């Protein structure tokens, strides 16, 4: 992170908690990071780690019983999103910050044409006439690589394939040339071949329009392909953050290690998939101390007593792991406690 230009988005101590009958689920529990202008930042982690909730929080899309706790700050273009009024936040949505989800199947309204839905963005935010908005929509659709955009725009969502629908959603997201696009698992629901195309498209459009992208995924392959900086999340927290090359070359946090290790490689002879044993603890009941302790092959008594802060472990590289102060413990791995105590492995 260069200290010279101020970041586009600056998130500080974001806490999004869900106040349910069964307890308070602390889905996002003190997350801080920046996104620079024109940058592609990735958030990687398994389901339930809080990455999607983080994304939704940025656009204030959390609905009761969820709530962004006071004290959280999301600074964007000089304002704090957390405290903005309703009208102001609506001004940002779809206009300055937009979002793409993983379910292109259901994200489009089945009773309106695709063109109408894309054009709607312009009619809400710019004072365009129907015709102008429509033309711009068709332009955008063509830009995302949809062949015969004029005809397609008049069709309904069910007449388009999954990949095309995702392109439509991308066009929708980029209509107003936003400063930031949040992409939440944009390719997970798509065929592998289409996945590659969509990712390429995102990268190309980003270069062309100059937006920043926040790429949320569980897939390290996507991270490697598209991002320049990576944030690893676990149990509602940031557990590691580094430039993408550094992360892949020198992962520090045992969880990141585990993630990398569990990726199957083509060409390697492997009979069994490597998994990280155990499961994520319940968000209503984060353990004191390190939240990864029970699944970690290096943990020791300090990890149970003290919740690790983010240690600096390299240039622009932080990790929430006590191994930063006792690195020689990495040479003495042991079976993770979940396995020892007979709790069912993943």
């Amino acid at each position, binding site marked *: 992170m260069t200290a010279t230009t101020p970041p586009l988005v600056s998130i500080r101590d974001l806490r999004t908690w*869900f106040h349910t009958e*069964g307890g308070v689920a602390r889905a996002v529990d003190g997350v801080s990071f920046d996104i620079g202008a024109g940058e592609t930042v990735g958030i990687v982690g398994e389901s339930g780690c809080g990455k999607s909730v983080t994304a*939704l929080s940025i656009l204030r*899309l959390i609905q009761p*019983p*969820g709530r962004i706790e006071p004290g959280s700050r999301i600074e964007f273009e000089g304002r704090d999103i957390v405290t903005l009024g309703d009208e102001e936040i609506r001004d940002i949505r779809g206009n300055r910050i937009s979002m793409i989800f993983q379910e292109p199947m259901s994200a489009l309204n089945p009773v309106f044409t695709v063109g109408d839905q894309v054009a709607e963005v312009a009619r809400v935010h710019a004072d365009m006439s129907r015709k102008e908005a429509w033309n711009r929509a068709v332009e955008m659709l063509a830009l995302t690589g949809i062949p015969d955009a004029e005809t397609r725009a008049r069709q309904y969502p069910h007449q388009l394939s999954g990949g095309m629908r995702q392109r439509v959603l991308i066009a929708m997201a980029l209509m107003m040339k936003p400063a930031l696009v949040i992409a939440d698992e944009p390719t997970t629901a798509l065929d592998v071949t289409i996945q590659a195309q969509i990712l390429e498209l995102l990268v190309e459009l980003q270069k062309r329009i100059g937006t920043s992208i926040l790429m949320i995924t569980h897939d390290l392959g996507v991270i490697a392909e598209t991002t320049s900086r990576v944030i690893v999340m676990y149990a509602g927290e940031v557990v590691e953050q580094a430039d993408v090359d550094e992360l892949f070359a020198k992962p520090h946090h045992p969880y990141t290690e585990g993630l990398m290790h569990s990726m199957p490689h083509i060409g390697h002879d492997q009979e069994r998939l490597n998994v990280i044993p155990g499961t994520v603890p319940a968000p*209503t009941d984060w353990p004191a101390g390190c939240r990864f302790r029970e699944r970690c092959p290096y943990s020791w008594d300090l990890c149970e007593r003290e919740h690790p802060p983010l240690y600096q472990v390299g240039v622009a590289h932080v990790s929430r792991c006590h191994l930063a102060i006792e690195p020689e413990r990495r040479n003495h791995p042991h079976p993770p406690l979940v396995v020892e105590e007979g709790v069912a492995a993943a």
Partner: protein
Amino acid sequence: MSGQTRDFAPISSPRPRESPLALGVRRILRARSSRAALVVLGIIVLAGALAPLIAPYDPAAQPDIVALKDLPPSLAHPFGTDPYSRDVLSRVIYGARLSLLIGVLATLVSLTLGVAYGAIAGYAGGLVDALMMRVLDAFLSIPRLLLLIGVLVAWPRLSIAALVLFLGFTGWFGLSRIVRGQVLALKHAEFITAARALGASRRRILWRHLLPNLVSPIVVAATLGVAHVVVLEAGLSYLGIGVPQPQASWGNIIQDGADQVAALWWMSLFPGLFIVFTVMTLNILGEALRDAYERRS
């Protein structure tokens, strides 16, 4: 977003298997509206049940057909008197008894028929099922009131028992569809375990698995069914083809006052209010039960 919040629903301990009855009662007692409904309905039912004890006058007595007829509500006659000098309050209380009784009995008939028809259709399958469903469609296309009018005009001077039967015979259509659906679903599921099924025990499996699944829709249908019958009987009595005179039912009382509806407004107002409250409470309870069972599945 819906996916996200669902991930954070509390992981509660699995619910102990409780009977549908207990589940329904619990749900009713939990919400304020259904508790209130239960109380109000209870009062009306109790009033009807205890009619001989609490009615101030004999509902059939016509003490003074000259001096005491057509009296507006007063302390002596809180609901006034009718053209035959009968006390309307007493008649309304006895009306509760009769109208609710008819409602419950007719609904029982409907339930029996509905379950039987639906079970047979579902179990038989194939051509028999298709034919039975067509016949069902035909019955469904005739509005219930119309069908009853058609039937009741042909049978003048009906006894109450016969009225109950006819009301019951016309109210089973919806339930039989639901039952048939359940039976069909079970038949297909049953084929999966066909290896374990022996010839005779298929019927027993159906019996043991079918009934528990049926209790919920039956209970809901029963509650809402009684409400329908109460309104229907009132309508038929109002038209003169329901409960025969001089018996008191809510619809009958309104009919007695129909000729002078403006002058004898109390004869329309009070029985009608009782009908509305009975139906309202039954609806609230029925919806609460439906809520309880739907959430469980």
